[in-house]
């Protein structure tokens, strides 16, 4: 019953920051499991506080899980399309090279495995995925 019935394209939307609620950890475990079962990720979309999952400026104690690093590795290894909502990101201090240069912030906080884009990417994902699942 638990084998891959058919190949399904998922979009996983993450609404919460790691460490603050369990939602990001659940989303991570779900994403790993669907890939292991032979399904596909059409897109990861980080929205609202979820954008904090894509920070590269984090330091986590040895006995704690580094969720940002876990996402980064999974995205790189599986070559996932990972999009961070621009409206949510920049006011929360998740900044890419372009924003950093434009506003002379002198620092980049976004992991290179994700890219900042608009909510249009979420709507595109609802059109082109078989299933959209939200964790918040």
């Amino acid at each position, binding site marked *: 019953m638990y084998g891959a019935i058919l190949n399904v394209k998922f979009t996983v939307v993450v609404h919460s920051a790691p460490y603050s609620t369990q939602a990001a950890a659940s989303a991570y475990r779900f994403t790993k499991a669907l890939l292991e079962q032979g399904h596909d990720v059409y897109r990861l979309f980080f929205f609202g506080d979820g954008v904090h999952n894509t920070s590269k400026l984090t330091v986590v104690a040895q006995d704690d899980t580094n969720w940002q690093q876990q996402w980064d590795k999974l995205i790189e290894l599986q070559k996932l399309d990972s999009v961070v909502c621009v409206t949510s990101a920049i006011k929360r201090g998740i900044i890419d090279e372009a924003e950093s240069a434009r506003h002379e912030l002198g620092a980049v906080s976004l992991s290179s495995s994700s890219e900042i884009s608009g909510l*249009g990417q979420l709507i595109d994902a609802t059109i082109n995925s078989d299933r959209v699942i939200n964790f918040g």
Partner: protein
Amino acid sequence: MSEINSSKTVSIISRQAPYGSNRAHQSLDIALAAAVFEQAVNYIFMGDGVYQLLGNQNATSIQSKTLVNALETLDLYGIESIFIDSQSLRERNLTPKDLALNASIVSRGEIAKIVRASDSVFNL
């Protein structure tokens, strides 16, 4: 964006009060994005979400933007399928004339059908 013209039905269930959290604003952002990309949008107000529709709001007092002003212009974006849960109004001692928006007052059973007929649902 390979098939951006194919239209699907996106339903947004907005269940939180405005201002206290940003969930109400996020619902609006998703609804507007879906409308801009020419998807069919159902915008459903339930639970504390019905508070978003009260008249006479002015969020400058808390240095925020008045959400209901944006909700009043949804039809300009082609969003006309707006539903308000009657039970949620009743539980909060509100009637349609307390609201700044004209929309369909519906039962839970009708909301169930709208949700079932949607391609994707954002439930915030």
